[in-house]
């Protein structure tokens, strides 16, 4: 793992996950989250989502991995992540976490997860603390 705590990295190393029904079930087991909107197509069809969606944090975890891969674990300490789950992620989609440095706030990053088509499904910021930048 890259432990370079450099402040001048402009882009995060992208991390990609293929979303499958098996991966969603494995994530349900990992988190004990068996909400039928993630697992039951018949139920999910009756909701505003119109079908099964993946757990939001399953994709969000890719952002943590991109941050750690690029900046090192130490950079995450005292960091503040704030995101919105903008769009549902469906079975069969491939999602990739990306990020780039914010020009107006050195050390901070715009972060997002996007589909293969480049549509952002998660979007937000990661702000590093002064301690981690020292």
């Amino acid at each position, binding site marked *: 793992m890259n432990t370079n705590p450099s402040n001048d990295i402009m882009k995060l190393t992208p991390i990609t996950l293929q979303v499958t029904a098996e991966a969603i079930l494995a994530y349900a087991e990992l988190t004990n989250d068996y909400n039928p909107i993630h697992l039951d197509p018949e139920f999910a069809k009756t909701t505003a989502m119109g079908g099964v969606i993946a757990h939001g944090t399953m994709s969000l975890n890719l952002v943590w991995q991109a941050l750690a891969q690029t900046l090192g674990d130490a950079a995450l300490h005292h960091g503040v992540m704030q995101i*919105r789950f903008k769009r549902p992620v469906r079975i069969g989609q491939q999602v990739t976490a990306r990020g780039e440095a914010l020009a107006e706030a050195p050390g901070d990053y715009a972060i997002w997860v996007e589909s293969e088509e480049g549509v952002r499904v998660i979007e937000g910021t990661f702000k590093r603390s002064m301690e981690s930048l020292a």
Partner: protein
Amino acid sequence: MSELYVYDRFEVGKLVGSSSETVSEPLIGHWARLYPWDVPAESGPVPAGLLSVLMMRIYQTVLAGRPPGNIHGSQKFVITALPEPGETVDGSLRCLSKTPRGERRFIDFEFSATGRGGRALFTGVMTMIWAA
């Protein structure tokens, strides 16, 4: 069976409950099967993504008996330290706010987690769109 956690049941400012999860070997193994590129070192802190997992596991325990179909709308995390393998994480969940917007019911939960000896690990705010 305990009463269902419907929207009207939550009281703003009130602690919803607390629970604990241990960063066990099976948990780490399960994580590594799903994210094989993010296997933690034998010693030292676990991957940061496991914070989401620990938070969601504690959330499921504290809020057992939720209406089906809730959706995770947004999330904030503030990390103080990452837990280590074998460490037990104590988490508590508080109802921070409730906001109806049209037909949607938003609830903000404040989550805070401590580890061994009460050391601060992370806090967060999760916004859920509540189904009923």
